[in-house]
């Protein structure tokens, strides 16, 4: 096992509870695994309560209820109430689908702290196309209700080639809806997004134009709406400090109870990710092979091993290294020091060629039918 030095294990701070892979939307950049249909089992209410309680005891304080669509769980309000009793700060990460005013009030009373709602585009036509369902108007209504009932609201818009030209309208929409935070999440190319990358990855010029517009707006709405900009790492020359370092901060629990150091880690070979039905969170976090795999720096290869930035970005993303290089120990190919950087450039060029051509590549939507092919 790589990096089994247990001396510097910090406790988890962030628990992402993926309650269900069920989702009425079909976004073609979904971060759920391609083969999610293989994992239809979901933890029981009691399992989730045990997980919440054990992780809280270790020091987890930020809690995300996510999915799939977390609202598909009938026990959501009960879990929110339990989380509040334990002292978590609870974030509901939702498409808004199925959220009614009654539910918004009920969740507030149970102790939910914040709602993050996704909107796919600034127009109904594009939103409904990307989401694969007619949800635009409902999302607008729900966003207003979230603010009406005093929640802080994050509006999350995933940015890609089909909607990046709407940047000015997206910013205006967020301001008009009273969002406290706008998350402009440039698509991260894993799972479904990786599959659809040629059709989703914007060109460098598109990114630069959109970023300029977002930066200018940031100043305009300073003190009123905060803008988080998730950087498009393909266009950077250093990798992201993925998950703030493996097994240092983030703990994801998948719907079936599999514990993951990041929500894509399931794609990595040979990790044998533990399940919360078999082990306590403390055992998983401190002792499991999975969570110790990439802790520290012992596992690194060159150029990371001798790099003076290795404690800054931890070698980047293990899943990205695996996706591009077939070697999860290698340097994230985004890094200009990586001998495999040309693979990122090839991906950029491949998407660019499609973008500048007359050809169309149909998006593969995230749904059970498509998932069953993986």
């Amino acid at each position: 096992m790589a990096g089994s030095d247990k001396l510097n294990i910090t406790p988890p701070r962030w628990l992402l509870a993926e309650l269900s892979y069920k989702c009425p939307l079909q976004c073609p950049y979904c971060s759920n695994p391609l083969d999610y249909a293989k994992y239809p089992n979901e933890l029981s209410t009691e399992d989730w309560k045990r997980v919440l309680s054990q992780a809280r005891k270790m020091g987890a304080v930020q809690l995300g209820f996510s999915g799939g669509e977390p609202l598909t769980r009938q026990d959501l309000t009960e879990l929110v109430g339990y989380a509040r009793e334990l002292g978590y700060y609870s974030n509901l990460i939702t498409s808004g689908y199925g959220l009614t005013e009654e539910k918004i009030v009920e969740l507030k009373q149970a102790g939910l702290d914040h709602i993050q709602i996704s909107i796919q585009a600034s127009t109904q036509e594009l939103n409904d196309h990307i989401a694969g369902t007619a949800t635009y108007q409902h999302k607008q209504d729900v966003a207003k209700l979230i603010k009406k009932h005093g929640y802080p609201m994050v509006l999350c818009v995933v940015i890609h080639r089909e909607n990046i030209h709407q940047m000015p309208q997206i910013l205006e929409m967020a301001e008009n809806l009273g969002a406290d935070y706008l998350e402009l999440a440039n698509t991260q190319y894993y799972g479904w997004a990786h599959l659809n990358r040629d059709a989703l990855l914007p060109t460098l010029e598109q990114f630069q134009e959109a970023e300029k517009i977002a930066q200018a707006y940031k100043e305009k709405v300073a003190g009123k709406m905060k803008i988080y900009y998730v950087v498009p790492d393909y266009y950077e020359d250093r990798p992201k400090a993925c998950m703030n370092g493996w097994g240092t901060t983030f703990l994801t629990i998948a719907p079936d109870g599999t514990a993951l150091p990041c929500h894509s880690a399931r794609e990595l070979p040979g990790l044998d990710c533990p399940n919360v039905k078999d082990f306590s969170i403390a055992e998983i976090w401190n002792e499991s092979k999975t969570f110790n795999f990439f802790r520290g720096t012992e596992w690194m290869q060159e150029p990371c091993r001798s790099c003076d930035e290795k404690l800054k970005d931890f070698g980047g993303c293990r899943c990205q290294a695996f996706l591009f290089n077939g070697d999860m120990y290698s340097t994230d190919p985004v890094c200009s020091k990586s001998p495999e950087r040309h693979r990122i450039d090839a991906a950029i060029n491949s998407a660019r060629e499609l973008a500048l051509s007359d050809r169309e590549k149909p998006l593969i939507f995230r749904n059970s039918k498509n998932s069953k092919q993986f």
Partner: protein
Amino acid sequence: MTITPDQLIQFSPLHRLQWEEAQQKYVILYPEGMVELNQSSAEILKLCDGSRLLAQIVAELEEKFATSGLTNDITNFLNVALQNGWIRQA
């Protein structure tokens, strides 16, 4: 954006101030984020409950810690807190 002396100071309803046993410190919680506070910052923010003016907060803390001359430090911190949206004035 700076603190107005004759307006009450309230902790933001969009943030939460909470003692964290595991970390042995106060933290500010907000959507998907957390700020860890040192003891003096936490003492100041605990008094931002909508019932006190700047001068009253200074007076209470000077009395509690049996010291004087805290006005500048507290004002500077509260200005930062206001700019970060942790507190508000009516």
